[in-house]
């Protein structure tokens, strides 16, 4: 690597490492993994500088590479996360709500959404989901990817996808009710 290459990477890092870190951390929630993804991004970008048209927007171009690396990350994580989903205890043997799990009225829900502490609790509740559930949630609600795309990347069937979303929603709802709205 010559001095000019070092300058290019140094400049990218100066301009984008904080933005990229925040963006990726929100999705990956593990600083070391985030750093890995960013390094991969910059290396891959450097290798492909020739494909970068000077007219194009540098930030958009780098972001596109970052997003691809993120998809690779999801794919790999899903492979690691194939484990049986925990069975739920929200319904009884005739599939009606159990007394302890039946939904209660949420007081002041809209206030909660403007409260920073609420999102800390939401994050904790999300972290209690299985790894695969978390991946589906991140891809769906943060990245807003299409169902078909999510299934393809994570290698799950459509029916499996609905089971995952259904269970995750039940788990999250219950966790928020017990830890925020029920207090």
């Amino acid at each position, binding site marked *: 690597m010559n001095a000019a290459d070092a300058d290019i990477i*140094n400049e990218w890092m100066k301009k984008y490492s904080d933005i990229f870190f925040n963006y990726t951390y929100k999705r990956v929630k593990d600083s070391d993994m985030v750093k890995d993804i960013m390094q991969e991004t910059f290396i891959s970008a450097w290798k492909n500088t020739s494909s970068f048209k000077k007219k194009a927007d540098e930030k958009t171009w780098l972001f596109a590479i970052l997003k691809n690396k993120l998809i690779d990350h999801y794919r790999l994580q899903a492979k690691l996360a194939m484990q049986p989903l925990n069975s739920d205890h929200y319904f009884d043997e005739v599939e009606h709500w159990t007394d302890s799990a039946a939904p209660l009225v949420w007081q002041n829900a809209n206030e909660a959404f403007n409260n920073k502490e609420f999102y800390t609790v939401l994050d904790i509740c999300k972290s209690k989901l299985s790894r695969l559930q978390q991946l589906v949630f991140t891809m769906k609600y*943060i990245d807003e990817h299409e169902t078909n795309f999510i299934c393809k990347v994570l290698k799950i069937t459509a029916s499996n996808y609905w089971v995952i979303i259904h269970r995750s929603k039940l788990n999250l709802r219950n966790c928020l009710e017990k830890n925020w709205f029920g207090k």
Partner: protein
Amino acid sequence: MITCKKSTEWIIKKEHGNLSVKQNLQLLSHLTICSFCRLFGEQSLLLNKALNKNNISNSPALTELDKKNMFSYIKNKISG
């Protein structure tokens, strides 16, 4: 009559437009008599809103040392 478990599943599918007309009717008739599932439906929408919101949760920041380490890692990788 569908069960509460089925009803919650269909409520979520409905949010994504994945419910047939027949299923929708069955769901609606369940909801008229089940206040728990009605609550679930409302809360599911609220949850979507919360999940969609760019939450301002406390994310850590990269330190100068982190950046230096990343830079030398990249430099090594590229030279190697």
